[in-house]
Structure formats: structure tokens, C-alpha cells
């Protein structure tokens, strides 16, 4: 991407695209320097090591029984849930994800503003096996797998059905016609073959794909 002054700045990415950097062999001195830097970062941050994420549950049970899990990823999807689904009468906050990456940092606070970066878990009071997650923060590529393992690892799955809500820019949609003439917003879906129910919208056509945490 170009900055104001025209120089090209490589956008931070955790994808290993630069093989030269990776191919460089580490000398013992390099290893020592890297270890010291990591130790310093750990001390500065205090709570968590830089790339690790923490899932904190407020309920006492060791593992949550879950039959329905709705995950809203990104600000738009999170805002949709806040506007149409969530309220303090029917839903209670039961967990939070604490993480840090180059794009955002979340805290363990559950009292958040819509403009904050956060990742919260809610439970339906009338049916505690229904869980909901609002994830408005960006989970980096090397944290996505961790997020999955830690969140799903805390659940006892009982005929679990997972619904993932997310948004993508229309400009990224690949289609024969121009996206300028496309009526937007529009819905598309992907489903596993185990999902037997009716899907409320057309399926995502090739060559379109889904990336990041929704894909993970």
C-alpha cells in the first residue's frame, strides 16, 4: 500500500510470503537476541505472551454444553446481533477472548462500546445450550487456529449446529457482470454436507472463497 508520501509500505501480514526471511539461518547470537526480545515483550505486556490468545469464561462449569453456536465475525455482523438479537433480558455474557496482534487488542472487560475491538460470548438464559459469539476484533492468521481450538475445546458438543455470520466487500465478489450493477447488499452461503436444513439464500459460487476466521 502507498502512504501519503508515495513510498510503498508492506501491509503487516502473518502469512509467510517472504521466503528469504524464513530461509535465513539463525546464528546462536541471533537466537539469543530473539529470546531476550520475547522475554522483554512478555514482561511489558504482563498478562499474555504476544501471540497467545486467552479464552476466559465467567461460568463455573468445566465445559459448556452447546447445541447451537452462532458466531458473528467482523463489525457489521457483530452490530447486526447487537441491533436485532442481543438484549440484557434474554442473554447473559459468559465469556471473553483476550488477544493482541498488530491490528487490535481486546481486554477482559465485558463492558464494551460498539467502537471497541472485542470478542464476547453470550448464553440464552431460557436455553443455556444456545451460545452466541460477537467477534468484532481481527484475529490474525496465526491466531485463528488457536481461537478455534480454545473455543471449541471448551464445549461439550450435543448435536452441535454452528452458524457463522460475516461480511465481505462487494468489490471482492467475483462475477461475470460488473459489481457496479449488482444489487447489494446480498446474501450468500456455504454449508457442510451434514447441514440438512434449508438454507435461506443461494450458495456461494466458484470462484469466490471465504478467508480468515470464518474460513477457519
Amino acid at each position, binding site marked *: 500500500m502507498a502512504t501519503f508520501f508515495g513510498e510503498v509500505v508492506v501491509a503487516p501480514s*502473518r*502469512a*509467510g*510470503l517472504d*521466503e528469504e526471511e*524464513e*530461509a535465513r539461518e539463525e546464528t546462536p547470537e541471533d537466537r539469543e537476541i530473539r529470546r531476550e526480545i520475547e522475554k522483554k515483550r512478555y514482561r511489558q505486556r504482563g498478562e499474555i505472551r504476544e501471540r497467545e490468545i486467552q479464552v476466559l469464561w465467567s461460568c463455573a462449569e468445566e465445559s459448556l454444553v452447546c447445541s447451537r453456536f452462532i458466531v458473528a465475525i467482523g463489525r457489521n455482523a457483530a452490530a447486526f446481533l447487537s441491533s436485532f438479537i442481543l438484549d440484557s433480558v434474554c442473554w447473559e455474557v459468559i465469556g471473553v477472548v483476550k488477544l493482541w496482534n498488530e491490528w487490535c487488542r481486546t481486554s477482559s472487560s465485558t463492558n464494551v462500546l460498539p467502537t471497541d475491538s472485542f470478542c464476547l460470548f453470550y448464553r440464552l438464559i431460557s436455553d443455556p445450550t444456545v451460545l452466541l459469539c460477537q467477534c468484532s476484533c481481527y484475529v490474525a*492468521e*496465526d491466531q*485463528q*487456529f*488457536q481461537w478455534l481450538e480454545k473455543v471449541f475445546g471448551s464445549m461439550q458438543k450435543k448435536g452441535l449446529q454452528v452458524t457463522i455470520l460475516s461480511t465481505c466487500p462487494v468489490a471482492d*465478489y*467475483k*462475477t*461475470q*457482470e*460488473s*459489481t*457496479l*450493477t449488482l444489487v447489494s447488499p446480498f446474501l450468500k452461503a*456455504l*454449508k*457442510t*454436507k451434514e447441514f440438512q436444513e434449508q438454507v435461506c439464500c443461494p*450458495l*456461494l*459460487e*466458484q*470462484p*469466490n*472463497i*471465504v*478467508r*480468515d*476466521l*470464518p*474460513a*477457519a
Partner: protein
Amino acid sequence: MFIPCDRGGCSAAPDFKGFTLLMPAVSVGNVGQLAIDLVISTLGMTKVGYFYTDCLVPMVGNNPYATAEENSVELSINAEVYSLPSKKLVVLQIRSPFIKNKYRPFCETLLSWVKSSKCARVVLLSSSHAYQRDDEQLLGTPLRYLLTPDLEKAVGARVKELNWKEMEKVAAYPGINDTDKVLHIPGGGITKLLFTESCSEGIQMAVLLKFCSEGDNIPDAFVLVNYLNEWLQLIKSEVSTSNNSTDPSSQWKIPSSWRLLFGNGLPPALF
């Protein structure tokens, strides 16, 4: 790492003993991956499983090899395994880049899976930056091969018959000392690591690569897959009666997912 697909209720792991594993390196122009797409699409290979790994950037979409409405709804992810038992061929397709610092663990896990599934040999399709060629490499064929010592014994003669060119080594300290030569595959992704590890672990591996640049790499993919076909004979190259030459390019089937590689249609208002 390898999770077999549940097909028709039978979830036993498929047997790859004695099979040839064909796989791409995520490299310049994605030529290896495009070539693998052509192989899977043309041979109508069946998906038999996938790799559950945290080493690759996640992605998901619908079936990239769909030919009709009915078979277009199967989900597809970043590392999937296809097989064709009649040709003793198992193919791994990788669809996304490696996560930083994760390419080494992936290579280790992959090679240990190759050993545990008792594949006879591995063929790696790759590419290298065309701009890094020296004066001699600029002339002649842009295709190169490499064989591990164990595979050299088995197929070295066949490769000589085909008149293939081995990938040249370069000076470790150019300009200073020309005697120490090392293997250098710029833009080749995990190619060099996989090859050197296979040499030291006694795995039979062949690397087939093409010098190319980023751009429209579809022609490069065709060239590479025809190169592979000279050796493995995956499809029959029919002699064209009009000009009496063998041109198997038209016999490779382009998958439906190659549509719109260079963007959407143009808005009519532009004109």
C-alpha cells in the same frame, strides 16, 4: 494431520502404499498449484481426505472442480487429498500460503506422513523466478528437474532418455569462490527444504520446476503439466493429424474455478 473423508459410511483410511504422491510447492506464479488443478480436473480424481493443519492460511469455498449443479456444493478447504487408485496416484493440493514460521513444521509433518502412508515416491511441482536465471539458463528450455539419490537409482535412466535438464547449482559465494556450489531455488517456496530433507531421509522425491514470472501463469501451468506427462504418462498425448505434432495441451481440462482470474466483467457505463 491427514483426515480421511467419510465416504459411504466407510471411514477407514485409504491405503496409499506404493502410490506416487503428486503435490505442488506454493511458489512464484502458483504454477505448481495450477498444474495440480489441471491434473485433478482432467483425471476426475475423487477427494479422499484433507490435512488438518495450522500451518496454512485458512480458506474455504465450494467445489472448484464442479461440472454441474449437483456436484458444486461440496466444501473445499486449503489442503486436500485426491486419489486415483487405477494409476496408483495420490495428489495433494495446497490452496493458500504458509503462515509465518510454520513452513518448517509443515514440511516435517508432511514427510513423516509420506513415510507412514508408505508412498513409493513424491513428485513436487514447483517454479522459480525467471529473472534470477544466469546467462546460460536464459537459453534453451525453462524446465528443470531434480531427483533425490534414491529416486535417481530408480528412474535416472528414463529421465536421461527424455533429455531433461537438471537444475544447476550456483556458487555459494559468487565472485569470491566458484568451487562451493549450492542448490538455490529463488521463489520456490518450500521446494528446497523438502528436497534437501528428502535426500537426507532417503525419500524418493522428484522436483519438476519451471522458470517463470508472476502474471498470467496458465500457459506456464500447461507447460509444466505436459513436462510431467512426458514422464508419468497420466494422459495419452494424441498425435494431431493436422500438423503431425503431439500437443496434449487441449486434452487437459480447465477447472470451473479458473473463471474470472483477472477480475469481473466491466461496467457498461465505462463506454
